[in-house]
């Protein structure tokens, strides 16, 4: 069953188009992440879904009911869509339980109490029920904000950069908690973020946006391993861009031959550093010299200059490998297990 259906949504401010022909279908209980840099239009899309912005064109349906089209515009208060804001936006004058109860204005007192207890239990903050927002930590506040939205039993939950103001450690924990809570309640969710890890951990599907245009829409694995263009490839991690020329059924690259069905005489190949192996001298290994070593904790990143073509490429090796700048080694393209490459 489709909960959210967006068709050809566009938004223009004066002459500046921020969203162009955006379409999306979200199934019930699915979590979709909208990801992109600042100004990519992701928050504007969220505001159009919630009803705070009117689209310039296109339509939005929630549970098969049109909430926004040329003829129809349903106000935010009538859409039954809940939203969690970047700064949690809890009411500073209300306690944690009253903040959650705020979402239950149409319920009886006993029903309200029951749902509040259930929500506090779900987020594991029962003991802080009487605390005011200023007496709680950022993570607790974000959990209360999430509980308030879920208590509303919305048709659709919108998370607008909910983790952007948390520190790295807390963020890591909160990602998993949010995912668990949303999955448990089977709430259809749209997450807006600029952090790829948020999107990968929380979402079932990811939509990559650039300048208001959809670049790719896929599962996290699909986005990472099969990026459709250089922008998506670079956005989600380090990547080597290598020139390739057709040779019979495959393509010749400075790193060896790749079998591919693509047409065209020339193309660029995008290869993730983890798909390049460093090893012993062999027939298909390419000699290269280390020009730079960067230590990243879990691994080391090497910048290599290929001896024949002089091209610079990046590879990653385990952190315990001992290497020096200027050292010569051999790198090999792992074509059999090649998962993260794309031709553009």
């Amino acid at each position, binding site marked *: 069953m489709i909960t959210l259906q967006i068709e050809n949504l566009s938004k223009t401010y004066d002459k500046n188009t921020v969203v162009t022909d955006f379409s999306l279908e979200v199934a019930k209980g699915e979590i979709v992440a909208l990801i992109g840099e600042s100004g990519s239009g992701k928050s504007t899309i969220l505001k159009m879904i*919630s*009803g*705070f912005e009117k689209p310039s064109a296109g339509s939005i349906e929630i549970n098969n009911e049109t909430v926004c089209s040329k003829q129809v515009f349903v*106000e*935010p*208060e*009538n*859409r*039954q*869509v*809940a*939203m969690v*804001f970047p*700064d949690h*936006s809890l*009411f*500073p*004058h209300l306690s944690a339980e009253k903040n959650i109860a*705020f*979402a239950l*204005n*149409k319920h009886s007192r006993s029903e309200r109490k029951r749902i509040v207890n259930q929500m506090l239990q779900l987020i594991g903050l029962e003991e802080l029920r009487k605390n*005011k*927002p*200023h007496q709680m930590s950022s993570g607790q506040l974000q959990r209360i904000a999430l509980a308030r939205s879920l208590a*509303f039993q919305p048709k659709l939950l919108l998370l607008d950069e909910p983790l952007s103001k948390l520190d790295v450690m807390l963020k890591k924990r909160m990602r998993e908690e949010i995912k668990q809570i949303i999955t448990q309640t089977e709430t259809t969710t749209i997450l807006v973020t600029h952090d790829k890890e948020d999107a990968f951990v929380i979402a079932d599907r990811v939509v990559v946006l650039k300048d208001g245009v959809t670049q790719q829409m896929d599962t996290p694995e699909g986005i990472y391993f099969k990026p459709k263009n250089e922008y998506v490839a670079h956005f989600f991690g380090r990547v080597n861009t290598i020139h390739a020329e057709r040779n019979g059924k495959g393509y010749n690259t400075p790193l060896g031959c790749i079998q591919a069905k693509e047409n065209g005489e020339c193309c660029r190949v995008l290869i993730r550093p983890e798909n390049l192996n460093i090893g012993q001298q062999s027939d298909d290994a390419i000699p290269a010299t280390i020009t730079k070593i960067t230590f990243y904790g879990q691994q080391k990143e090497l910048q290599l200059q290929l001896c024949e073509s002089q091209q610079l490429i990046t590879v990653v090796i385990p952190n315990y490998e001992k290497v020096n700048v200027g050292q010569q080694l051999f790198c090999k393209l792992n074509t059999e297990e090649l998962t993260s490459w794309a031709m553009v």
Partner: protein
Amino acid sequence: MWTLTTLVVTLLIATPIIFILSHIFLEPSDAWLHIKQTRLNEYIYNTVTLVFGVASLSFFLGVVPAWLVCVYNFPGRKFFEWALILPLAIPVYIMSYTYADMFSSTGLIRKIFGSDSFLLFEFKSLFGAIISFSFALYPYIYLMAKNAFKQQSVLVLGVSRLFSYSHVSIFARVALPLAFPAISAGALLVIMEVFSDYGTVSYCTTPTFTVGIFQAWYALEDSQAAMRLSAILLCPAFSLWLLRWLIIRNKKYHVDSSQFNNYRFGQISKFSRYFIFTMCSIIFFFTFVFPVGQLIYWGCQTATEVIDKNFVSLAINSIFLALSTACIALFIAIVVSYTVKIRTTRMTRYLAAISKSGYTLPAAVVAISAMTMCKWFDDSLGVLTGMILSNTLVALMFGYIVRFLAVTFEPINSGFKNVGHTVTQACFSLGSSPSRTLLVHLQMMKPYLLSALVLIFIDILKEFNLTFLVGPTFDTLATDAYSRAISDEAVPYSSCSALTIICISSFFLLFGKISLDRLGKKS
């Protein structure tokens, strides 16, 4: 050096309070006993009734339009957003005598509706005083409430809307409780103005504490009784500030988000839009257009007789006095706030708080203490005939600064906060001296400096009570308007002075608004 300067300034500002409190413990005089037996109950009753009446009506006139312009789209919204501030340019006593004339036996109401109309009532009464104060002072609450409502817009127009609450529920359950600190601060400013006023209450024949202080000082010539009455008046003033502080302490009301600032509730019905428009129009009409219209009518009749060389020099004197005092106050506020910023200690914070306390002092209290201090200074120098400080411009300016310094602190503090600590730290780390660093700050605080200057300038230009008490030898537009207005036959002749005050104040308000908008766009 910065802390020492702040200490000296604070001591000077705090002296009036110390002076007044020191007189409570002296032996009561006969005049005081007479006042206590015959008039004190009347003063208390009138003051309390006036405060409740004005606070309630001003609350309605200030909070409701502030909410409407912040959350709804209706015809003329942008106009009303700033136009409803304009009554701030009308001194209360001018408001009272324009309305009193309309309700008089020869006034407009009787001419239009006849002498039997139910609309006719004796305006020179407690009720008339409540209307005059509320109509002229509600912009204090309006301004504070409007800023608070805008600041909380993410909660009102974002979160609450999504949870399907009615607009009335959102107003009552979210907007009002969150805006309480701002609205209560505005209401207290209004109440302090009521405590301070002499012109309106004496014109409306409603003797309050301030009238008692004036009478003790001038009619009974008993400074001790005046001081004692002042000390009593200080109690409710301080108690109200203390009560507000007790309510809001340890509570967080601030909502830091501007992303919903330009949002409004969705399309409302045509009837509702025009109902809101009519409501705002009625408020604007009765609080600004009506009294100013009456003054313009009088002004046209009397301008040729009133406007001469003396009038022009009176206007120049008033502007000079207001502008020079405003500049001195601005300088003091900058020094004190900057000291707190660069030398943050418990002592500097207390000193800054004391410097701001002047606004809690009713004007009459400030005037009495400034005069007594100056007299004491002159006496201790042994000057018998001449007066070095008493009744001079210096005493008057001192009184103005004590009373209005707090007005400049809010924008200046906000300005320093807005510049942020990183700029200060960057300046110092590059070897910049505190004075040079201050100059860097001031260049980044132009909108805030302008707001502070405009606010205090208007307050001083309108101020009548202090001028009347402290500087009878120095006439201003305010004292001229009042002295003509208290004589019934000469009421129309006061209109030129009153209109000049209103025009200059309105001009400064609009100039301040336009400049702030421009600076805001640039930044």
